[in-house]
């Protein structure tokens, strides 16, 4: 009888050990989780009763006194080959005047890249606003399959739109094909109606520029630093494709920066995690 009990106990212990091993394996089946302390940055967009006119001699002094946040960037991991360097961070400010919302992005960039050609790439940056109730966990690949409204400012467009200069190149590459180093796609340049592309996307390779850009933007490259401003109405003209902002509400937004001198274009870029945007009352 004792022997039988021993067999039963031994069997139970072995099964339990095996199940424990399986459980451990399943918990780590996608790899060993890295310790990553992530505290979401909160960016306040207070109500300030003023307008900034992007036309003419716009002064950056308008942004003095508004709280800024430094937001860390990392590389878009889903695109190979991974670069050695990325733009490390971007400083962001925001406010609204109950009619329009304004953003200000600033980051170091030693080279001015405002010609977009077949083998030269323009500096650029963007703000992403996830649409709908369910915000994706990650900003990788524009939040995978979630819908987003993206405001992308590009230096070459800024040059053409605000300075009235020609495009500098008749064709340009704007797609990074990661496994064929020598292959780039060239497409015809488009006429720019703004320095900012107002874009809708639902995941990788779905970037679609809207016919009408509701977003204004302007950038200044001063002493190795980009200063870029965005402005758009708080309200959405089409809730399906436009981000909307209500004072008192909090939103998830994310930032991206392309360094043209590093060959950034398309999916090759530096991106941030999601940031909480608090629109003040």
């Amino acid at each position, binding site marked *: 009888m004792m*022997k*039988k009990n021993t*067999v039963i106990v*031994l*069997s139970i212990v*072995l*099964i339990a050990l*095996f199940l424990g*091993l*399986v459980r451990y*394996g*399943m918990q*780590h*089946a*996608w*790899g060993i989780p890295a310790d990553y302390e992530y505290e979401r940055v909160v960016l306040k967009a207070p109500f300030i009763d003023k307008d900034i006119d992007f036309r003419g001699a716009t002064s950056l002094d308008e942004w003095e006194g508004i709280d800024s946040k430094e937001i860390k960037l990392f590389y878009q991991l889903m695109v190979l080959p991974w670069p050695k360097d990325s733009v490390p961070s971007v400083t962001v400010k925001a406010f609204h005047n109950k009619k329009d919302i304004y953003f200000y992005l600033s980051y170091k960039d030693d080279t001015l890249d405002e010609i977009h050609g077949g083998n030269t790439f323009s500096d650029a940056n963007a703000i992403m606003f996830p649409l709908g109730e369910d915000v994706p966990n990650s900003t990788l690949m524009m939040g995978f399959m979630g819908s987003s409204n993206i405001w992308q400012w590009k230096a070459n467009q800024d040059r053409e739109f605000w300075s009235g200069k020609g495009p500098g190149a008749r064709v340009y590459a704007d*797609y990074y*094909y990661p*496994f064929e180093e020598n292959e780039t*796609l060239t497409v015809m340049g488009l006429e720019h109606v703004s320095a900012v592309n107002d874009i809708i996307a639902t995941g*990788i*390779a*779905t970037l679609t520029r809207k016919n009408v850009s509701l977003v204004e933007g302007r950038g200044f490259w001063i002493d190795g630093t980009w200063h870029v401003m965005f402005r758009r109405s708080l309200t959405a003209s089409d809730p399906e494709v436009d981000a909307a902002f209500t004072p008192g509400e909090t939103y998830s937004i994310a930032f991206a920066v392309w360094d043209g001198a590093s060959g950034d274009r398309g999916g090759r870029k530096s991106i941030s995690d999601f940031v909480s945007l608090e629109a003040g009352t």
Partner: protein
Amino acid sequence: MMIRVLALALLVGLLIAPFVVAEERYIEVSGKTFSYTPGVIKVNEGDVVTIRLTSEDVHHGLFLDGYEVQTKAHPGQDGVITFVADKPGRFTFRCSVTCGEFHPYMVGHLYVEPNSPFNGYAALAVLVALGSLIVMAREGNGDKPAKDKLFGLIDLDWRFDLTSFKPIRTLFKSRWFPLGAILVNLLFFFALLLSMFVGGYSAGNYNVGVMFVWILWWVMLMFILVPFFARTWCMVCPFPLFSDWYHRGAVIEVKPGKQSGLNKPWPKSLKNMWVMNFLFLGTTFFSGFMTVKPLASFILLGAVILASFIVGLVYKKRSFCLYMCPVSGFQALYSQFAMSEIRCKDPEICKGHTPKTCFVGSEEGHGCPWLLTPFDFKKNTYCGMCLECFKTCPHDNMAFNLRPPGVDLLVETKREKRGLDEAWKGFIMLGIAVVFFIIYQGPYGELKDMMRATTYSGFLTFIAIHSTVSLIALPAVFGVFAYLSKLASGNREVSLKRVFVNFSYTLVPMGLGVWIAFSLGILLPNGSYLLHVISDPFAWGWNLLGTANFPWTPVFTDVMGYLQGAVLIVFQLFCIAFGYRLSKQTYPESSEARRGWLPMLCFLTLATLGFLKLFLG
């Protein structure tokens, strides 16, 4: 009238044929994990074919067997290939970029018509069947030959004892053999299990455990080990080692006395293949995980090792291997076809030898761990080739014979009866091969999704279809032909069950042939992944053999269909050769045997045509 119509049709066909003009064909193929749309493309020989590949989700490729051309596509970045379809037949196009767990099985079929390879093999299969009838008729008219020769060439009683070579006999009598080989195998499997454990849910084609177990080991079993060397895998299998050590209380030496554990006898009603049948079939329900996810493979192998030990605590000796091990069952059945055996040399010596040390054990070795009586068993089915009988026999009366293939199919003794359990094992193996081919090597994405359980309802539907095919549909069709055989024979004495069971042994060579053909379709396109994984077995960035960056390189895929067709025809010959002999065993009169054989010949020919259609058509 009918002849005139046929002649007219033939004439029209001949007139039209030269006017079938080659066209330029443009085909858009969309890839989405893990299938193509369309999955089947048909063109005519000589067409200039352009395939534009688009991707709906991740990076996919398209490699076309036989034509050796490929392209790749990202979402938004299409790929294009153009080629002249100058080779007729069915060709598989497959994903060439690891796109996820089921990547090796993301395939479609291109038909370049007319499909002359299939037509040729189908005609050959019919000719083989008709030819066998001529041979049968000639045999019926002549005198019986003194010796029964396979294909009139190989004496079925021919044996060659490998242990007549002294070094081999010495090796077999050593206590270190096969233990040494088992220990090496244990170390190897430990590494494989570790790789599966750390591999988690990563893509199986880049995991050494998954690749070795499901590509190399499985193929070796079907190609070499079982057909040539019977259950030699059981000889070196490390899984029951811990149970053996526990039973014996020793690692190498032989300790006298009762073995450890409860030592209960296995229930008499379960001393057959039924438990193994259901366990094996049940295991295949989870193939959509086990064959592609390293951790799932770990769970399966770990469970087998654990079960073998726990069953060993309760039941005698190798009861687990005999009656439960999922791998053991098909080896047991198919080893009846094997070209080797362990048997006693001279039964007269054994008759005079008491006690029977091969069964009860001696100081030299253990009594048969497989609970056989080595002095008189006649079939490979339950012999695990552990070689203990070589050690315990004081008269050196055991032999490791080479022999003609399939001999055991004709053996039935009072103690080793044919049974429904073995018949159903044959159906299950055949059913699994059919279902696996359609899902793994077929162009049906919905079925792949069902097998890998993207939805519960789909998974349950897969289980239901899979079980029905193996347990009900195939036996039912076979049963109809067995009934027709009984009717045609005119014999009322022989029971339908006996007809059914006896002829079911023709499914052994057929099943083996089908599995070899299936394995070719897995090994040739995917074998090159092995070079990567042996160089970096744990995916830790190693490059032990300098082959870690060896690209995916399918080999001989241009002749794969021809090889598969040839294998099916060769094993059709074995089916017919042994089927007719089984008919003669089933029906006492030779005229009854000839008549009773005809429906079964029809079945086997239709089955061969069906498999040719599956693999080539």
